[in-house]
């Protein structure tokens, strides 16, 4: 990671030209880069057509920051997030998570990363409909723990899940199924689920995209609080520039390329 800080990538230079005019005026001790990609390429096969989605993306997200990825539909922002979250593998290029290169990991190692290091939340919440809110939150723990280990630690895990649900304001809805909850509640449950295994990065794919303004703000509030209080690194995909402004830095994608990357006014302010 040290090379990233000493030798800025072309993207960051380009980004700083636009979004960081005052950065030079008020220099900051930038935190170290936690997630970054180098010349990341990904295309999808649709019949005989090969549709390039990412065409050499260089991206960086620093530890303890909220990095927003914005762009139009089809710009490749969700794909980038999936690649960062090891849900998918790139055609070429590199992804680094701390010191670990994640693009060429085995399936099992990627499963482990998703289970333990990354917390994922999605636009459509993606809760398991058969399980209650509490069980949904416990699912990653169940996946990481074997049956006996889970059984031995069930009280602590349950207590942690309840604590997380209380933190997102759902302490009273533990036994409710997803269909009995509102969109905001479901998204808050998803956040609690993403946090159960104490991840290092929270990857959020349009977390407010399916919510009304007020509920979206609540959810965003939780995310911001997580960043502020616990210093959790958050990478958030959104198409709403105003939401993106809430974070520390913004990466704008356009047609599979980073159009610019820079710090937000909040960061600067």
């Amino acid at each position, binding site marked *: 990671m040290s090379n990233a800080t000493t030798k800025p990538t072309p993207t960051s230079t380009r980004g700083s030209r636009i979004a960081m005019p005052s950065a030079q005026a008020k220099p900051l001790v930038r935190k170290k880069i936690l997630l970054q990609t180098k010349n990341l390429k990904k295309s999808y096969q649709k019949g005989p057509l090969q549709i390039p989605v990412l065409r050499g993306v260089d991206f960086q997200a620093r530890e303890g920051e909220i990095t927003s990825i914005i762009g139009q539909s089809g710009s490749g922002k969700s794909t980038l997030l*999936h690649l960062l*979250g090891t*849900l*998918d593998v790139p055609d070429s290029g590199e992804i680094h998570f701390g010191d670990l290169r994640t693009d060429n990991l085995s*399936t*099992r190692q990627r*499963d*482990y*990363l*998703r*289970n*333990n290091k990354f917390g*994922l939340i*999605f636009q459509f919440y*993606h*809760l*398991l*409909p*058969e*399980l209650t809110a509490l*069980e949904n939150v416990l*699912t*990653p723990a*169940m*996946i*990481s*723990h*074997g*049956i006996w280990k*889970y*059984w031995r630690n069930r009280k602590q895990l349950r207590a942690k899940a309840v604590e997380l649900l209380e933190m997102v304001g759902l302490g009273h809805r533990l036994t409710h199924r997803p269909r009995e909850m509102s969109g905001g509640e479901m998204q808050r449950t998803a956040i609690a*689920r993403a946090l159960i295994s104490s991840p290092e990065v929270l990857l959020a794919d349009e977390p407010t995209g399916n919510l009304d303004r007020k509920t979206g703000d609540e959810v965003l509030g939780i995310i911001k609080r997580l960043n502020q209080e616990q210093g959790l690194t958050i990478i958030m995909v959104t198409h709403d520039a105003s939401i993106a402004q809430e974070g520390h830095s913004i990466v704008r994608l356009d047609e599979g390329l980073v159009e610019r990357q820079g710090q937000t006014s909040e960061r600067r302010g």
Partner: protein
Amino acid sequence: MYKLMLCLRYLRTRYIALASIISVMLGVATMIVVNAVMSGFSHEMHKRLHGILSDIVMESHSLNGFYGWEEQISAVKKVAGDDIEEMTVTVHVPAMLSIKVRDQWVPRHVTLIGIDDQSYNKVSDFSQYLKHAENRQQVSFDLKEDGYEAEAGSPLRDAGWNHRRMKVAFERELAEEMRRFEILNQTGRMPTEHAPRRTPIGNEEDVAVDEQPSSVIPPFADDPDAPPLPGPKPRSLASGPGETGIGQVDPTRRGEDPFASRRGLPTRGTFDPAVHQATGIILGMGVGSVRQRDAEGQVKDYFMVLPGDDVRLTFPTAENPPKAVSETFTVVDFYESKMNEYDSGFAFVPISRLQSLRYMMHPELGNAISTIQIRLKPGANLNEVTNRLREHFPAETSPYRIQSWKDMQGPLLAAVEMEKTILNILLFLIIGVAGFGILATFYMIVVEKTKDIGILKSLGASGSGIMAIFLSYGLSLGIVGSGVGMVMGLLFVANINRIARVIEMITGREVFDPTIYYFREIPTIVEPVSIAWVVFGAMLIAVLASILPAIRAARLHPVEALRYE
């Protein structure tokens, strides 16, 4: 952990899976019921087929039998003596049995078997099927006083000496009456003197025999067709019936061989047909009776002949060319192996009598016999011993051929076996169909759960973990389905006769007709091993059927699965 939880949760919430469970359940239950009934049926058949047959039969090629069987027996003992428990010899001959029913002679075809009453029941279970308790202990060709076992109301209960005396008395009375009418016809005058009533009717048989021995006349004494009675003509006949010259009955001499003196065997007296029976014969139940339904639909046996009655047998001698001989025998017992083929086809008489009647006694060669019957020791391998004997006594050079009882009933046993195999295959196909049902259902569930699979994968669940969910789902369907099916099947088997009666009541048709099968109840045998196989097979099919959908689920790409709508 999540695998177990989701598997159970899916089991509880996907009612379509219930259809798979039911199909597995029905398949398993049917297989268990059919197997139990088929096993019961085949066991019962084996028992009955084997019933009056010995394990191995060395059967003469010709009807005339063979001599020198004593050497053959010692030769057999040398070859397979360690496996042989007991051996005996018999004479087989096809015969015509004539039964007098209401003054009509009814002929029936039987296989007449001459047996040694001392040793024959040691080589087969023949004696177990006899109707008299004493005969079951030790077969005897003596007519018993009474005590033939049968259901209440069956005339068999009144059979025996009592029946014989009553019948003879009746015939005597009738003959006397006929004689008086004859005189009336000839002279125009009714004879005034009435022959004294000689036969007391009642329960004083023993007294009657001792004090009024003249009351019993020999069977067929008035029958002009009856063959001459063997032995020196008794005084009673010489002086005509009704005279008082008949000696006291010596009960120990009943059934004594009248030919003993001719064969140079010691004899203690002269055969006295007036109060003795003719040579005893044991008939199959189906030979002497007809099983029918009465007006109320109850299955009943109608007897044409009872122990105590006489029958005529006509069969070929062992001469060249054979001649027919006829002889009177007294029915002394019935056997009922419940195997229709035997019960209506065999009659047993003492071997020495049959040999003498058929001229199978040679002054130099000894007696001829037609089969050597062998019973093996328990645990001996029937096929192995049979083959060993065949090897040593090839049919080409021996006067007999060697068959095991299974060979003799081969086609029937093979048919039952094949029936069972085919039924099992067909029924297993039913479970196979259930398996495809599971496959289709599972595919549906996997498609339906695509998004959930994506979610689980995004949370770090491995492909094998996802696969395990669906495999254990299939396994639990198999376990629940086959478990419930097993319980259902066993309950069905336990209550099969009650169920049959209910079906009878509803359809009005008898499920298991005892007039055909000779079974009053449906026989069932529950074989734990076959049940274990059925249950295991059903579970295996359920798991196999879930493999494909599980693989599909495991291979789903998380991103594509998440996007799936």
